[in-house]
């Protein structure tokens, strides 16, 4: 629990900063214009830097983790997804990880019973919550394009309609809002409840969870309960993406809390574990084909190694080899 307190305090403080600054110090321009620009530059720049930095380290060996039958003899059916034998199958494998969390789907739970006896049960809650969280997050982010683009694009409108299909509450309740909050809550509770995960969790693990929770809660609050003037908010956002530095009047302070937390999260992103978003595509145990014996993989720094040659070996053992009737090179 102790490890969760620090990030919780951090998030609460971060939420108060813009509230006070805008409400009482009139720093709307700083929080509405300057910080968002800084955030997007840091986010994009940092993200690209990290990915390029990874890419600069070579992959010396082809080391896929094979989770299925290799392609070998004609009459043995290979597992094309779990033991891909070419680039396209490996691409399929990566996509199955990115889109469906394939490996997490395998998850099991080990239990130690008296005997002693180990038993393994299926355990898909983490997979379900993880998948629900990430997909909802994606939809929520895409939905927000309606605030940035003057003429709302068709796909955003479609997402809105589908997401709000239940048509309860006013404005219509987004299903993804509910799923997102539920999933993040599950992920937080899981970190407390599963002692293994609790032990390995760092404040750096709670921080982004609390941030996302806070951002989502403030967002939900603005949409359903404490209204802000959407027209002005949209004006601000459209202004920002067109580098028009005008700050519209009369946007509620709650909005600045939402925006500032998003900016902080975006700036924190490239320097944190959240980079798994880019990293998952680059994992050498998943994105390489299991065809190491078929096609040679080149290691750019393959070291010169001086090994003990046969000649050196024979020099040491020649007499013994002769006695054992072994053929030798030098008589």
């Amino acid at each position: 629990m102790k490890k969760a307190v620090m990030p919780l305090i951090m998030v609460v403080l971060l939420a108060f900063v813009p509230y006070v600054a805008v409400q009482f110090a009139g720093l709307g321009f700083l929080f509405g214009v300057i910080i968002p620009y800084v955030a997007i530059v840091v986010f994009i720049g940092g993200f690209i830097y990290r990915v390029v930095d990874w890419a600069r380290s070579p992959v010396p060996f082809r080391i896929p983790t094979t989770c299925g039958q290799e392609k070998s003899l004609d009459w043995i059916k290979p597992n094309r997804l779990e033991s891909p034998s070419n680039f396209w199958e490996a691409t399929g494998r990566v996509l199955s990880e990115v889109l469906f969390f394939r490996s997490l789907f395998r998850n099991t739970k080990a239990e130690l019973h008296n005997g002693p006896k180990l038993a393994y049960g299926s355990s898909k809650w983490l997979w379900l919550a993880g998948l629900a969280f990430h997909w909802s997050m994606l939809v929520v982010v895409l939905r927000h394009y309606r605030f940035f683009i003057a003429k709302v694009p068709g796909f955003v409108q479609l997402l809105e309609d589908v997401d709000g299909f239940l048509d309860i509450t006013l404005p219509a309740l987004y299903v993804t809002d509910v799923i997102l909050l539920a999933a993040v809550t599950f992920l937080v509770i899981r970190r407390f409840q599963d002692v293994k995960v609790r032990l390995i969790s760092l404040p750096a693990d709670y921080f982004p969870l609390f941030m996302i929770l806070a951002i989502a809660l403030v967002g939900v609050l603005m949409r359903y309960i404490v209204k802000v003037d959407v027209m002005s908010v949209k004006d601000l956002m459209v202004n920002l993406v067109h580098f028009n530095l005008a700050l519209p009047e009369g946007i509620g302070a709650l909005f600045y809390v939402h925006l500032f937390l998003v900016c902080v999260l975006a700036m924190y992103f490239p320097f944190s574990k959240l980079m798994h978003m880019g990293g998952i595509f680059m994992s050498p145990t998943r994105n390489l084909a299991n065809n190491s014996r078929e096609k040679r993989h080149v290691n750019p720094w393959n070291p010169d190694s001086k090994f003990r040659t046969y000649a050196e070996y024979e020099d040491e053992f020649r007499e013994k080899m002769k006695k054992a009737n072994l053929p030798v090179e030098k008589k």
Partner: protein
Amino acid sequence: MPKFAPKQSELKKEFEEKPSLLKGDYPDKELFDTPVEFRDGNWCYPAKPEIVEDIGFANPRKWSPTDEDWKLPDGWEKTIKDGMKDRLERFRSFKLFLDICVRCGACADKCHFFLGTGDPKNMPVARAELIRSVYRNDFPLAEKILKGFSGARKLTPEVIKEWHMYFHQCTECRRCSVFCPFGIDTAEITMMGRELLHLIGVNNNWILEPVSNCNRTGNHLGIEPHTFVQNIESLAEDIEDLTGVTVNPTFNRKGAEILFITPSGDVFAEPGVYTMMGYMMLFEHIGLDYTISTYASEGGNFGFFTSNEMAKKLNAKMYHEAERLGVKWLLGGECGHMWRVVHQYMDTMNGPADFLEQPVSPLTGTTFTNAASTKMVHIVEFTADLIRHGKLKLDPKRNDHLRTTFHDSCNIARGMGMLEEPRYVLNNVCNTFHEMPENTIREQTFCCGSGSGINTEEYMDIRLRGGFPRANAVRHVKEKHDVDSLVTICAIDRATLPALMNYWNPGVSVYGLHELVGNALVMEGENKRTEDMREDPMAGFQDEVEDED
């Protein structure tokens, strides 16, 4: 009972009564607040100074993990940090895996050492955190303000002790990597950890002595050429005694079609020797034009457990010898880590092997397209192809005295993906094959607990714990299907599983797959077979003999 083994009653009691993370008890100390404790059975003897010197590794000296002072060289902190930086630049896997873990905990209960010891630091994620915590310390300012935020810590001798302990409680089996949503492979972390430790002379004699031996004599056991030949010839005599068929292995013969390389354990140690006999009988039966080298007389590669450079150096002999002898291609025996190296590293390290030809089975005409570049074929692929084409005369009833199950070795399953071939062969040479539970086989297979160079006697306590999940799965089929024979295709398995079975499942014996092939093989001109290779009576055949009498 081996000297360093825990008393079984005490270990059982510990499993059942001691609170553990696995059973949902939160420890009273945080991860890095628990000190490491070296006691009998949980540490390997450090390498002898002359061996460290011989292979050119750092800091040869007399020391012991139980010492307070490990006599680390001056400036060791810098050596480690520079070594880490160098490896971050050379291995994307290392860099990426340190960066992207989200500590979701999916790997936590997948490690056999965690399941067997309950030690929190044996959770794969925690094992990686041992290095990650030092890696993160690159931002000391941030860490000062937000103390403990990202779990960074200073590099101290205590950290090195921790690394030594826990990078030898990982067998690089990759089971965690199967479950990780990002494919983070603790084997990569452990390899780097061990490389770093070697930079400052923190090592393990059980790994370095074989490395030194292999370099000089060609094999881990340090067997010189004449003895190597003698031993195989005595196995040939055993075959003749048993079956009446003469097998004539050749050594270092130029112009042979195939160079056969297998772990030296198969040549010298029980029960591996029976597998060796199986290979020789098979080759005789099909009239294979092959030779065995005394120079490249080791399939395994303990260098792989020290550093990439050493792995390359030891592995280089295979191609070097193949070129000298002018063979067409290579055939490799049953081994785990050998095949990790051959399948995923050899061609990259020591290829391209342009002087060899794409492997074609001389009997079936099958072209092994999957080995087109490396030009080395696994014996089980080779045999499966022979059986498929009806080239072998087999009588599976000859293995009716055994009730079998199959242990996938980690490297074969998760570093190569050869899952069906051994099952196909096994089903063709015996009638009694029963699978262990599905979460313990194929890509989810459990390690024997002693891989990656820790199969030494003084490490028995840890080995028996680490092997517990495997033993537990065997016990399941033992109770359910009366299984008494554990079949493997790995030399380390054959060396270590007998001790594990004796401890947890007495009555279960360990076999190599080709030992069973040898039992079932109906050879031309053979005597009536009534005993298997271990001179155990075959079921059903003994009676016939008596009737005839």
